[in-house]
């Protein structure tokens, strides 16, 4: 088998059977990262030393005949908005370029405890605002399938790294599609869990009521394995839900017989590229052939989701990002006085898109505008939740394209509104707090197309089953970019 392409379960077997050490495995991935990075630039920080130290720990355990966890000794990387103690966490922003957190995010802690080997921090759109990773304050990341295209965003670095096999898995964050859209663009599996299923403690907030951390993986099985580690109630996050965490791998069943799948017609409206639609329609046929009952349905308020999202998310971000003022940490501009220090630090430290959203959000919350914008957006949010609740009285899962298009060319999209429209299928799910997964559904113009499945609150299990069944009956997830064929030949 080809090492870089191996599933988490296969890597675990190799480690357990001492066919390879964690150190060798880590070195292998670090070597591959060195080779791939000049073209991709999915990493912002590579933590080679820390990684090798951690790998050594696992190797000692294995040598001492101690049992190891399923993800123990396996390399991974985190989106750079997830706090890592002693390792820079920049949110791809100049304003946090020098910020080294004194604490670990809860997910970081959990992955550490699980024995995973952190090899680095991944590029993203600044503060997770964007859908191309071109808004990174440092450099854009390329799409592994076509270096001239974007990997999507904001978890572009995470998706590209997994697609390019730089890491077996990565974590991203999803506020309006930031895990699923880049997963679709890069041809990997991206899962956004139910709001409240994974702790947000230590995730640098963009929009608190929408943000959720989730895994980016090569397969649905890997997604379930990572979710097993990171999900669960966290007393440090008041919005995390005390629920009984199942073993998500139990849902990995190749069976959708009699599963009721709804296809909302609003997700196939104007703006959907015909070549993407063709792929999704083919996916629908796959499900039908496998015995699922697929039916068209309607979510009537979806057209208001996008404006409601951009008001709520921007309002929250205008407040969440107020703390970056140069006083306590981060970038501080040279200034004459206090107000000047605030303004200049923020003017120089933030990029265009971040400033645009801060201004939009500040405006939406201003006295006299609050009711017309923020309050109204919240009402729409309720209507959208109700639309989904209605649909889920009839269906187990909803199915749609993840994105209306394939990955854009680098620099192709300059109009922010056009970019916002690209999030139209992913945003409503965040507004409703639902779990959703994007998985490889095929190709259009040689680029991956993502299939999005949506479930009820805390119904990650049925989502995983639907996704797993599709994956087991298709080959799309097995394809890798041509340049990678050579790199992943290393045989064990």
């Amino acid at each position, binding site marked *: 088998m080809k090492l870089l392409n191996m599933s988490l379960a296969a890597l675990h077997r190799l480690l357990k059977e001492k066919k390879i050490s964690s150190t060798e495995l880590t070195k292998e991935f670090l070597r591959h990262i060195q080779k791939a990075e000049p073209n991709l630039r999915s990493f912002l920080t590579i933590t080679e030393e820390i990684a090798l130290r951690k790998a050594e720990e696992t190797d000692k355990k294995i040598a001492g005949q101690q049992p190891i966890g399923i993800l123990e000794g396996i390399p991974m990387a985190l989106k750079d908005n997830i706090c890592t103690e002693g390792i820079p*966490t920049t949110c791809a922003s100049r304003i946090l370029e020098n*910020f080294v957190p004194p604490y670990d995010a809860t997910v970081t802690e959990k992955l550490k405890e699980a024995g995973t080997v952190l090899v680095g921090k991944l590029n993203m759109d600044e503060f997770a605002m964007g859908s191309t990773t071109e808004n990174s304050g440092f450099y854009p990341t390329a799409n592994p399938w076509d270096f001239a295209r974007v990997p999507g965003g904001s978890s572009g670095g995470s998706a590209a790294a997994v697609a390019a096999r730089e890491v077996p898995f990565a974590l991203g964050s999803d506020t309006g599609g930031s895990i699923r859209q880049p997963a679709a663009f890069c041809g990997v599996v991206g899962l956004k869990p139910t709001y409240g299923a994974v702790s947000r403690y230590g995730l640098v907030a963009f929009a608190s009521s929408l943000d959720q951390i989730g895994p980016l993986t090569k397969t649905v099985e890997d997604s379930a394995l990572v979710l097993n580690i990171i999900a669960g109630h966290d007393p440090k*996050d008041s919005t995390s839900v005390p629920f009984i965490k199942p073993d998500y791998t139990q849902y990995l069943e190749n069976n959708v017989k009699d599963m009721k799948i709804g296809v909302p017609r609003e997700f196939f409206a104007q703006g959907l590229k015909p070549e993407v639609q063709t792929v999704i329609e083919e996916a629908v046929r796959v499900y039908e052939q496998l015995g699922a009952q697929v039916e068209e349905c309607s979510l009537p308020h979806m057209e208001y989701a996008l404006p409601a999202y951009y008001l709520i998310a921007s309002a929250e971000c205008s407040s969440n990002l107020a703390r970056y003022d140069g006083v306590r*940490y981060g970038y501080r501009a040279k200034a004459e006085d206090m107000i000047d220090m605030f303004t200049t630090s923020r003017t120089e430290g933030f990029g265009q898109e971040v400033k645009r959203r801060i201004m939009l959000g500040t405006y939406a919350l201003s006295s006299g505008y609050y009711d017309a914008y923020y309050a109204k957006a919240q009402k729409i949010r309720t209507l959208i939740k109700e639309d989904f609740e209605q649909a889920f009285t009839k269906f187990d899962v909803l199915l749609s394209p993840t994105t209306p298009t394939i990955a854009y060319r680098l620099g192709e999209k300059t109009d922010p509104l056009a970019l916002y429209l690209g999030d139209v299928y992913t945003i409503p799910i965040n507004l409703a707090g639902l779990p959703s997964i994007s998985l490889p559904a095929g190709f259009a113009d040689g680029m991956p197309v993502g299939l999005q499945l949506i479930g009820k609150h805390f119904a990650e299990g049925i989502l995983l089953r639907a996704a797993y069944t599709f994956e087991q009956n298709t080959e799309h997830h097995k394809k890798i970019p041509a340049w990678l064929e050579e790199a992943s030949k290393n045989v064990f």
Partner: protein
Amino acid sequence: MSFSDKFELVCGVETHVEMATKTKIFCGCSTEFGGEQNTHVCPVCLGLPGVLPVLNKEVVNLAIKAGLALNCIIAEYSKFDRKNYYYPDLPKNYQTSQYDLPICKNGWLEINTPCGKKKIGITRVHMEEDAGKLVHSGETITTSKSSGVDYNRAGVPLLEIVSEPDLRSVDEVLAYLEELVQIMDYAGISDCRMEQGSVRFDVNVSLRPRGSSEFGTRTEIKNLNSFNSVRRCLEYESERQAELLLKGEKVEQETRTWDEGQGITLSLRSKEEAHDYRYFPEPDLVPIIIEREWVERIRASLSELPAAKRERLKSLGLSEYDAAVLTSSKAMADYFDEAFTFGVDAKTLANWIMGDLSALLKIDGCSFENSPVSPRQLAGLLNLIKDGTISGKIAKAVLEEIYKTGKDPEVIVKEKGLAQISDAGALEKIVEGVLAANTKSVEDYLAGKETALGYLVGQVMKATQGRANPGLVNKLLKEKLSR
């Protein structure tokens, strides 16, 4: 000149009280005052990227308690909101506070006025976090080359108590504040350490012609931290507004600040420059649902409030004045109550607490809470007077000795041989000796000079180091002299 003939003062107060919890409102850091700068801090109260608040339930308990003590309606559904503004002492550049759904509203408290009791409305009570403190290198912010921030106080829980504009004189305002602070103290909401800035006031002041029922234009004066400042500030501000109105000028609606040194208020910002705080619901916290059972549990734990305590003390035969002094602090009132359980006379006890013991405590700046003389010891002392073991004069000396050594009064009396000499036989000898040594006084007395008896009593007391039973000495002397 005085404004009060022409104008009536209309005042409402926002009071910020630091709550007496061990830890901060959204993290586990200590709320202790006076630690080394930036030592009671963690990623959460420093507002580092990625942190989240977790509500300290004790804060909610105390807020409910405060609401009950102030006769408020306790909300069944309450939530936190973010108040957005930029200042370096505010780690997140927003304050987590409560906006449209405060935890308590529509309450009142009662004050005494020259015209009898008056109810002052409480509009609302809400929870919020305190900010840090700027530390200037120079005297003031304007004369400093640099300023630092101490975040020890950031995240200390605050209760904001907003009164209705029901107060009509400076005295009423003071009476309201004193009563409010006492209630907070009694209910255990706050230590109310004014000198540490744990209680702060914003006052809204306006004037209107006497007889008018409409409100005039108000100014808000922020951040007063003592009763005295409030009094001086209100006196100044009402004069200032009266002068403007008498000249036919307008009072500007604005926020002002009190300059303690100069004794004047200064304009801080006008209505047009007023902050737009862009309040919105705090998305990092979940709404607070308060079931009736929770409220009743807190109600059951609520201790006696000052007004009730004053009435009870009066029913023991104490005067209005004594009751007011004894209840002026919860510690003193508790001290009285505990000592009273040892079966002493209320009035005598009150006198000793308000007089000698208070004076002793004052010297060392001690409070009744940590008085070196325990209530049991004071009661024991009073019982020694009552049963004639020692005289009131000796008792004062014994009290000082208890204060110094912590020993029980009975032990001190025994060790130092201070017990009153009530043995007639023993005293008789001493009396005879005194009479023999003071023949001049004896003659004076026999010649009709009554005062000479006092001198002779004094001589007997001197000879016994004050231990002689004064009644008995009197009796014996009179007996001997009449022979």
